[in-house]
């Protein structure tokens, strides 16, 4: 057996002995997957928004808002709606007891039926941005309908003089009853776009990546302080074999732990990673890239302490830069370009191509980029090789 494999095997045996291997390869990824599934699980059926209606108009128009629009929300479980006075509603929203309140002022219907402007007010809690958005959206589309009727009536009147009550009703009915001629269809599911769960699972995985690969490299520094490094150097073993052996430990642990994370999030969280072959290619190339980066960082360190603290900073910074938790690419062209320096961005990109039923080969560009990162960092680390393996 080549020396590098012997050394890697010895390392892994030590890691199994102190249980850190199990910890890292299995326990941590599973626990993280479980935590994420806890966060997402109950939240995937979001709790109903809490709205209030302050109807100071008490007209058929305002009642219709309550009975048609808001009732629909309640029936669908999207929101609960309570009626109350304005002061109470405002306080409740301000205190965070309510997400938003709809305020229909007195005389609303009259104004709607005239040509005067009318306003429907939505008061939202600053901590419930999504709920407020939805409330605003609901109110807007309702008001849209009202405007349509007004415009239709005005349009007809404009041409044919004033209308009778009956004609007015007719026009209103016709407008209300007409189906919307333009509809919007969300085709995101068919595109190569990660769904929310998978996006977070992927972000977590890729973030995790740069931490797990520290093991092998840190063990090299350990050997130096243990004194066993000099024994390895005295043995008929190439220096490169020693380093490769250490890196193999990193790669082995990295691949296993990522695989467990992928499987764990698939099973527990319901994340859909896509074609297994594609995912496998991404995992292996991602681990290689991450190992390369970790080696470069470690090759600059003199002690395990230094290596450890530097790895942490690099891992977090690159993780964020690479878009592990929020889409950095949208922050501008500069960010999008800079993020491509990180393996994280390519890993996510590769996963994106697998979403929506992408084929395995679609990941090849991303895999190529990851391998390039691995090669470059590997080369840099190996020129500093002498430093690490100096006794």
């Amino acid at each position, binding site marked *: 057996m080549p020396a590098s494999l012997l050394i890697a095997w010895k390392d892994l045996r030590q890691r199994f002995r102190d249980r850190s291997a199990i910890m890292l390869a299995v326990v941590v990824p599973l626990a993280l997957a479980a935590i994420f599934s806890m966060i997402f699980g109950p939240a995937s059926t979001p709790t109903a928004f809490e709205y209030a209606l302050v109807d100071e108009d008490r007209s058929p128009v305002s009642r219709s808002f309550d009975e048609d629009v808001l009732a629909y929300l309640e029936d669908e479980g999207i929101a609960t709606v309570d009626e109350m006075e304005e002061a109470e509603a405002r306080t409740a929203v301000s205190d965070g007891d309510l997400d938003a309140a709809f305020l229909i002022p007195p005389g609303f219907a009259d104004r709607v039926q005239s040509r005067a402007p009318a306003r429907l007010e939505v008061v939202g809690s600053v901590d419930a941005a999504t709920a407020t958005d939805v409330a605003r959206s609901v109110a807007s589309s309702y008001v849209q309908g009202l405007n349509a009727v007004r415009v239709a009536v005005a349009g007809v009147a404009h041409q044919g003089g004033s209308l009778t009550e009956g004609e007015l009703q007719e026009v209103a009915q016709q407008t209300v009853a007409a189906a919307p001629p333009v509809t919007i269809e969300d085709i995101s599911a068919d595109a190569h776009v990660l769904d929310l769960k998978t996006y977070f699972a992927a972000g977590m995985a890729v973030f995790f990546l740069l931490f797990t690969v520290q093991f092998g490299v840190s063990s090299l520094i350990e050997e130096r302080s243990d004194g066993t490094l000099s*024994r390895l150097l005295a043995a008929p073993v190439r220096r490169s074999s020693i380093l490769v052996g250490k890196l193999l430990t990193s790669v082995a642990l990295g691949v296993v732990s990522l695989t467990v994370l992928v499987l764990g999030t698939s099973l527990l969280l319901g994340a859909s990673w896509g074609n297994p072959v594609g995912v496998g290619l991404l995992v292996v190339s991602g681990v290689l890239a991450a190992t390369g980066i970790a080696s470069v960082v470690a090759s600059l360190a003199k002690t395990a302490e230094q290596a450890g603290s530097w790895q942490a900073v690099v891992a977090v910074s690159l993780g964020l830069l690479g878009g592990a938790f929020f889409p950095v690419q949208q922050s501008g062209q500069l960010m999008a370009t800079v993020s491509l320096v990180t393996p994280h961005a390519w890993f996510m990109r590769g996963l994106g191509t697998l979403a929506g039923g992408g084929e395995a080969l679609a990941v090849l560009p991303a895999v190529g980029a990851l391998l390039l990162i691995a090669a470059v960092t590997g080369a840099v680390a190996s020129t500093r090789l002498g430093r690490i393996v100096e006794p």
Partner: protein
Amino acid sequence: MATDGDVMLRCTDLRKSYGPLLAVDGVSFEIRTGETYGLLGPNGAGKTTLISMVAGVLEGDDGAVALDGLRMDPSALDAKALIGYVPQDVALYPDLTARENLRFFASLYKLGRQEARARVAEVLDVVGLSERADDQVKTYSGGMKRRLNIGAGLIHRPRLLILDEPTVGVDPQSRNAILASIEALSAEGMAVLYTTHYMEEAERLCDRVGIVDLGHLIAEGPPRALTAELGQAEHIVMAVEGDLAAAVAAVDALAVAGRTTGDAGVLDVLVTDAESALPLVMEAATSSGAAIRSVNVQEPDLEVVFLHLTGKRLRD
């Protein structure tokens, strides 16, 4: 495979600096097959650096190391296969058992599985750890760890065994055991390179001794020959009370007196013939105003040789 007669190790003009510090300065020596060669010198003499270069762990700035005709440097795998290395600090994996440690090192030296298993059992026996072979090394006492440390260097039956101060901080019993096992190995025909700053060990074990100080090899030869070279065969050691410096000066002024030193109430003077010199020395000391508490006459040893050559003690 090239061989070099019966010269197992040949070091030629080795040189190594650490920045401005010249650790090894033009050292050359040879070790023959079956010979035990000692490198004697105080801490900081450059012994570990030399050893590291011989073991191919460190690259020298200049000079050459050859193992049985094979050139040795960090990438010389064939030369490395010939040596066994026992570093000064215990170099073992604490969370692996003795057996696992030995098996791992055996595999690095390309021993086949059968051979490795047999050899591991043998070595465990030799170092007396067969009973505790399957306990993790971190549970061992210091002495046990040291024995295993040596065992790990023997696993592949090296032609040259290199030991770097193997008895530092070791209790007398373990030390004895270690020395005995090295003698046994030497008797079997293994060449040994042994560094130490304990002259008793060097005298006991070594066929030849090289004395190093400040990166130089300042003398070389069998222990007996070195001491004999001095010409001045014995030294008188007196415990003295009073003004030691004055006593030293007075004794030193004598014609019969060779190198005279005074340290911690002890006066030490080299003489050719103690019997005749003794009364003169004692008189000189008392006349200077000191009171003599005890007198001892000692056979010369390497410590003396070292003192003579360098003006320093081996042990600080």
